[in-house]
Structure formats: structure tokens, C-alpha cells
């Protein structure tokens, strides 16, 4: 995998739970359905990318945040748990789609060029571990 794409997919782990294109939900109760800490595993199925990486992300009031502010990404989870992810850097991008349900989530991701693609899974984690 070309090195320029590595950052994108490194960030994609965090991005996997980022929602693009959703408006902020107005229902505060529904907004918190997926609040908490999530551990996201990015798996590469095609292309010369890292085989797997695990990252921590947080969801607060349906806003998706990086585990420790290391990744400057943002987004929202829809009330139904749908996810659409876009990560961009220097004109290059990767996208992911998927869904959260209960304490788990899963989806797919790919580069905009199709050079790498794979799947992601997520599991809710305790607040302290």
C-alpha cells in the first residue's frame, strides 16, 4: 500500500464510527443510544494495507469522538445506528458504511480509488478498563 494511503486508513479506524451527512438528531433521549466507549477493529480484505488495527472511539450525545483527541474527525450516529464514514486528507479519501446495534457494530470500508478495502467491527467497551 502506498504510504500516502496509510494515514487515511489509520484514521479510518476512528472514522469507522463517524457519520457524515446526518443531521443532528433533535431527540436527546435517542441521541444517547450509542453513547459510550467503543473499540473498533479495521480489517483489510483487499489491498496492501495493514491487516488489522484496533482503535478506541467515544460517542457522546451521538457525537463520535476519537478515543483521546488524537484524531481530528467528527460525525454523528443516526438514531437508527446507521453509519456513513468519510475520511479525507490532501485530496484523498476513504469511506465506510455500516450500522451499530446494541453493543456491536459492523460495516465495510474502501478507499476512494478502490486500492484497499475491508470490513470493520465495533464493540462497546466499559468506561474504565
Amino acid at each position, binding site marked *: 500500500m502506498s504510504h500516502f494511503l496509510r494515514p487515511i486508513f489509520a484514521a479510518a479506524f476512528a472514522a469507522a464510527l463517524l457519520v457524515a451527512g446526518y443531521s443532528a438528531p433533535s431527540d436527546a433521549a435517542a441521541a444517547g443510544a450509542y453513547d459510550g466507549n467503543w473499540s473498533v477493529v479495521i480489517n483489510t480484505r483487499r489491498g496492501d494495507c495493514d491487516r488489522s*488495527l*484496533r482503535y*478506541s472511539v467515544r460517542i457522546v450525545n451521538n457525537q463520535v469522538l476519537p*478515543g483521546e483527541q488524537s484524531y481530528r474527525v467528527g460525525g454523528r450516529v443516526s438514531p437508527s445506528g446507521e453509519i456513513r464514514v468519510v475520511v479525507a486528507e490532501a485530496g484523498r479519501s476513504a469511506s465506510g458504511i455500516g450500522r451499530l446495534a446494541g453493543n456491536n457494530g459492523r460495516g465495510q470500508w474502501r478507499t476512494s480509488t478502490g486500492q484497499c478495502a475491508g470490513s470493520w467491527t465495533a464493540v462497546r467497551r466499559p468506561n474504565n478498563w
Partner: protein
Amino acid sequence: MLVFRMNSVISLRMRSVIGAAGALLAASLLLPSGLPYAAGVAHAQAVTSQPRVKRGTAAGTMKPAPSPAPSTSKELPPRVPFTTAEDAVAAIPGIPDARFWADSETDYANALPSQSGPWLILSSGGADGAFGAGLMTGLTAAGKRLDYQVVTGVSTGALMAPFIFAGSRYDEKLRKAYTQVSAADVFEAGSSTGESFVNSWPLRDFIAKQITPELMADIAAAHRAGRRLFVVTTNLDAERSMVWNMGAIAAHGGEQATKLFCSVLLASASVPGGFPPAMIDVEANGKHFAEMHVDGGLGGQFFVAPAALMAATSQYHLPASELYVVVNTGLQPNFKVVDRFAPTILTQAIGMAVPVDTRLMIDRAYLAAKRSGITFNVATIPTSFNMPSAGAFDPKYMGALFKTGLEQGRGANPFSDQPPPYPAAPASQQPNRIEKTGAN
């Protein structure tokens, strides 16, 4: 208030840098030298490139960065202070024979088995432990697997040591542990506690699943039969290596012993800074405190005997019948144009230091064996193995290295009776050398 906010900003900034460096270091320190530490590099680059992420790119759907929210990192409790004198006599409550200082010749002698026999020494090496796992499985297949009287392990060598010590019926678990794991099973970025770059809870959970009551019972039985399983950690407070008598811990039994057993394995493979240290509760003269334990490789890439006994000037004879050393790390230098980026520089530096230390230690073990009048046997990763790893803990890479070890174990000469040659100049330099010679 302003000061507080400034500190918060600085803290977040620092955490970002730490997060970047963390995955890189963790991956690099767990991986053999010279491999592409893609996971860490990727994460590091992702973080460092964050100011360049443009809002509105990618079909204009990117949301701006969210406002900071409370961090998930919990406050680490303050440490109970203790003195070097207290630490010198500290012990595990209820398991007094759980450990000894690696520089204590007396304690070492007392912990050794009463019967002589073959010793197996398992080195550090991160993901390259797949080689050792494959080698041992191959020895089983060839009918050459011995019941080692003593097994010692450092870092990844520590992680595989319990299975090898417990016997060949654990070969399949060993194979799975070294061919079916990935980076996601070892560490998580973005949730560090401030004492390391990444969080190692995945490895902690993985170890806990591997150390079953059945395995503990088998290790305890072997210990009672007189065999010994030693794992080395580094007591970072004391800057001294510590040897853990894992058979004695297993023989103690109970939840506390199992928890300690797992903590020791995790500590032995936890490169400081990359992974969190393991805090181990001890007691000294009625005072309770916790010691900070990290990767055993800091004190040497494998352990045979206290350093003073291994010295070239020592007259000590190892009470073993044969010495087998499995080197789980490549010994060849790996060329790389190093980025002007601290984690990358550290990665390359450590990647060089570990094989150099390992190679020197092989010489020392060879001399100790010769002095003791016992056979010396060393297995190293063939220099012909040069498959690249797609990031940290690439299952395909580890599977290929396991197979290499397996074939070597099955082969006619799985071990060499002499240390391997020191790395020669890369082949690409040979023509230049010849030209120079000719010009002279």
C-alpha cells in the same frame, strides 16, 4: 482558570503526540527489527497529519472536529512510596517462592531443579515468536521434542513458554496463538492511560483466555515433578531483572495465583512506554505496595543464569545436560531511510539494539555451555526468510514464519552447535568493496 485551560490544551496536544508515537513504538518494540511497522507508522502519520484534514472535502460531507469531550482516561492512583531496602525483601503475599532477583546467585541455585536435564531458553522477538512456536511444533512432529528440565522465557518467549513447558499436547494452542492473532488482538490505540502510548487490554484479555485451569494444573504438576518454568520481567523501580517461578505460582493454585501468572506474562512482554506496565502487589515487612514491572528484554533478550554466572570470567558450570536456545528475532540489520520523526527514529534504534544484544548473548551462552561441558544448541531464523509484514502482527507473515520454524524443527538439523555468523555487509556493498580493493 486560564492556566488550567492552557494545561488542558497542552495535555491534549501531548496526548495526540503520545498517541501517534504510541502505536508506532508498541508495534515496533513488539516486532522484530526492520519490519515495516505499518500500524504504528500509519497511526502516527494519521495523527500528525491531522491539521491537514480539510473540512468539506470528500463530497463536502466531512463534519468538523467535534468539541472536546471528557476523556475516557481515568486518573491513575498515586503510587505508595517504598525504599530500595523494602523492595529488596518484598515478596508476593502467600506465595513466597513466586520469584527471585535475577542477580541473586543463591536464590537462583535454590530455585533450580535437583535433577539435571536439558534446558530450553526462549528469547524475545515479538511477532517473530512464530518462529519458535513453529520450531517446537516441528520438533514434536519429528519426534525430537524433549521434556525440558528448565524452560525460561523473556517477552514473546515468556508468552510461549507455558505451552511448551506443559508439553506437546499444547502445540495446537501454540500454533493458533502465533498464526491467528493480529494487531487488534494485541493493542488498541486511542485509549492509553498516560503511562504508555497504547492500551494493551486486548493482549491482557488474550492471555487470560489462554491460561486455562487445565494448563495451570499441568504446569503445577510438572513443577511438583521437579521441572522448572522461569519467566523474566524487569522491575523498573529497581532497574533489576526478576525471575518468576511460574511453576511455583501455578502450584499455589487459586484465583490470585492465576491472576499473578497472567500479570507476569503480560509484564514480560510489555515494552515500557509502548505498553502499560504491570503493577504487581507485594509485601515487605508488613507494608503493602505495588512494583512496576515491564518487558523482561530490558535486562537481556533471554535468560540462562544470573549475569555474573554467565560472565566470561566466571567458573560457574550450568547444571544442565544440554542447552537449547531458541532465538525469536532476526539478527540481520534492516536498511531503512529513517524519517526525521522521533518515533520512527526510536523504532529503528531499538530495532538495531535488540538483535545486537541478542547476538552478543548467544556468544555468552555458548561460552557458558562450553565451560560447563554441555552441548550448545541454538536455533535462529534463517537469513533466507525475508517476507515483509503488512503491518504489526500480520497473520500471513507470522504464518509463514511459523511454517519456516516448523520445517526447521522437522528437518535434520533444527539446531546449530555454534553461534551463527555475525551479519556480513549487505550484498549490495560487495561490489564496492571489491572495487576498492582493486583500486588499492
